[in-house]
């Protein structure tokens, strides 16, 4: 703003300067990470997770910045649900973080929206190593020949159990146990310990996926849902019966226990979740917690696959080379492996896997659990979810909750689910 004049010029200038500064601030807030004069490059790195994860990541970053003094990393993190809302808003403004945590459900979605950087080129240029990954994990972030994410650690669905309750009820799950054996065990726990057996598996999309895989189907195909209304009606009808009979916990109470888990809140003896989440149970509850295998249909096939959190780059980043170097460091550096532990799953590369030996019982169990999975050859490949999978997951959780509370009859809930999923997958 230009102002001329003699009287009160100074005050006018001050006001003008003030507004200009205010505008400038707004503008600066929108700027993307960029390099400064001396060749230092600043990258923005965001992830979802707890404070504990943030502390570990910050220590890893300090190591990285020491090794690469010309690259600075700015960080930001939120809880899972808030993370994607913020990410969407940033990405739509062309302000995507240079590097961010990612998961299988989002690869196709953000690839379709031209958000993800194909890291293949950086691999070819030698800035990112794809060797040294365990169990074929380097294939995990591939979509249609593009490398959209690099795995940081593997995880898999598991049954987290309250060992004290299980032991007292005389229940000992074995690999290959069937759904009938699992439900008999729950009934026995209910009878002998007076506690609901399971927190309620009917709303967990990733578990239903395993159940479907045991029957030769899957939750998602590359473009849509991989099951029928009849399949889901069957799954939810039985789920609702078991809520009624008290084999599964009362949803009214598990809802109110949140954000605590129903298992640590003493409302259920076990629940299905990702094996690396087990770490949180030990600090949250007073009992002893352990991992049990996924029940099967035929006594063998669990339908499991190794999942993984990943690191992805933004297609709009001005520094793809630095992004690749940073990802490379975060997945291969042994010291980072020691710092991160099993926080994001069992480290994806052998270098990091060997660098960290869990000292706590929970960590040891996770390692043993995944080694058993790999050794028993039950693992299957996974196809990246179609765009809209995240909305499908949220709807699955919500409608199963309505169904379990008796607010919505099962057939109605199923119909609604298919309608909503169709909308979500077509957007």
């Amino acid at each position: 703003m230009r102002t001329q004049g003699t009287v009160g010029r100074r005050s006018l200038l001050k006001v003008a300067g003030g507004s200009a500064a205010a505008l400038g601030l707004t503008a600066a807030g929108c700027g993307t990470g960029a390099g400064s004069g001396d060749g230092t490059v600043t990258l923005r790195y965001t992830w979802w997770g707890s404070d504990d994860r943030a502390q570990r990541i910050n220590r890893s970053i300090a190591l990285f910045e020491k090794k690469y003094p010309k690259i600075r990393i700015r960080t930001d993190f939120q809880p899972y649900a808030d993370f994607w809302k913020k990410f969407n808003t940033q990405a739509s403004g062309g302000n995507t973080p240079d590097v961010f945590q990612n998961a299988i459900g989002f690869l196709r979605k953000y690839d379709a929206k031209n958000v993800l950087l194909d890291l293949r080129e950086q691999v070819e240029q030698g800035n990112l190593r794809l060797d040294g990954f365990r169990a074929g994990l380097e294939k995990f972030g591939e979509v249609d020949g593009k490398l959209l994410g690099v795995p940081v650690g593997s995880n898999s669905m598991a049954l987290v159990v309250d060992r004290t309750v299980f032991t007292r009820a005389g229940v000992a799950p074995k690999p290959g146990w069937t759904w009938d054996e699992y439900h008999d065990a729950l009934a026995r726990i209910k009878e002998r310990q007076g506690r609901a057996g399971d927190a309620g598996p009917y709303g967990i999309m990733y578990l239903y996926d395993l159940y479907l895989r045991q029957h030769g189907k899957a939750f998602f195909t590359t473009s849509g849902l991989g099951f029928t209304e009849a399949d889901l009606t069957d799954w939810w009808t039985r789920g609702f019966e078991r809520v009624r009979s008290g084999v599964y916990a009362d949803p009214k109470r598990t809802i109110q226990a949140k954000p605590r888990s129903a298992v640590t809140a003493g409302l259920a003896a076990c629940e299905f979740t990702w094996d690396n989440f087990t770490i949180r149970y030990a600090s949250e509850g007073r009992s002893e917690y352990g991992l049990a295998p996924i029940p099967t249909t035929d006594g063998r096939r669990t339908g499991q696959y190794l999942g993984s959190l990943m690191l992805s780059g933004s297609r709009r980043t001005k520094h793809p080379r630095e992004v690749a170097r940073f990802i490379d460091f975060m997945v291969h550096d042994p010291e980072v492996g020691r710092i991160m532990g099993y926080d994001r799953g069992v480290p994806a590369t052998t270098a990091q896997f060997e660098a960290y030996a869990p000292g706590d019982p929970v960590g040891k169990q996770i390692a043993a659990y995944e080694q058993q999975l790999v050794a028993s050859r039950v693992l299957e490949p996974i196809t990246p979810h179609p765009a809209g999978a995240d909305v499908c997951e949220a709807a699955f959780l919500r409608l199963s909750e309505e169904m379990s509370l008796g607010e919505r009859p099962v057939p109605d809930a199923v119909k609604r689910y298919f309608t909503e999923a169709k909308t979500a997958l077509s957007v």
Partner: protein
Amino acid sequence: MDAAVTSVPAPAPRPGPDSPPDRGTAGAGPVPGGRPPRPPGRAGRSRRARRENLAGYLFMSPWIAGFLLLTAGPMAASLYFAFTDYNLFDAPRWIGLDNFTEMFGDPRWRTSVEVTGWYVVIGTPLKLAAALGVALLLDQSRRGQGFYRAAFYAPSLIGASVSVAIVWRAIFSDGAAVDRTQQLFGLEAGGWIGDPDRIIYSLVALTVWQFGAPMVIFLAGLKQVPRELYEAAQVDGAGPWRRFWSITLPMISPVLFFNVLLETIHSFQIFGSAYIIGSQGNACGPADGTLVYTCYLYIQGFENSRMGLASAMAWMLLLAVALVTAVLFWSQRRWVHYEEAGR
């Protein structure tokens, strides 16, 4: 006389941030006709006046810039998006009224309208009744009156905060304070938070608890009622109830109208408490029990990336609030009593 009392009720301090999409629905004034400031021309006859005008505009410029950039611009954009398919990433695509058709056909949208309507219809009268009741009690001169006023006003200041909502969730949960009190009276227990039909009442309780702001306005109105009217009525043998109905209520009806208007508009915009009390990982309450309108709007816009649909919803809310406001204004002829000017 209380110096703070004015004959026209001043807008009360609003507790906490309102939900952004429809800020200024009815409360804010019309768009100022002024253009952005321009440097003064050389040929002006009265340079001094011009310069003063310029100074005025410059002083206003932060506000004008803020208004244009943060309110008018986004509103215009949102109006455009309402008629497009916009997923935040790809360029908006014009689809005419499709968003509105989809909205009206969406059962979840209807749920959100029901939940919000219920909240407004139950919450607003209860809150105003509480505010008026306490204002009547505090209108008498007694010792420590200042303390009580401050104490009753305090929840209005903190009630909209996130921490209070979290505490609220804890209080109304299974086995917590409210649940145990209920058990003492032999009422069915189990907590309100896990019950899709009851959780909305914990939101109502939260808003009623914040009756301080309308209470202060009522108090100001009560101070305005001429004492001689009561004295005359007393001489005529009117009891307290009769005096309330025939003197107090008509005399404060403008203030009452103002409060009804403000609180109704405010209720429609409930977001923070519903979002926090209702959701822990799962959006807006067990079985959509706290799925108020703005929550659903937020979910559609930011979770499902359907910004076009969300914009259409925002404008629908604006229309609804405008309609309710218009009806209230129309109705005031029948029940709001204005004193002749120059009292």
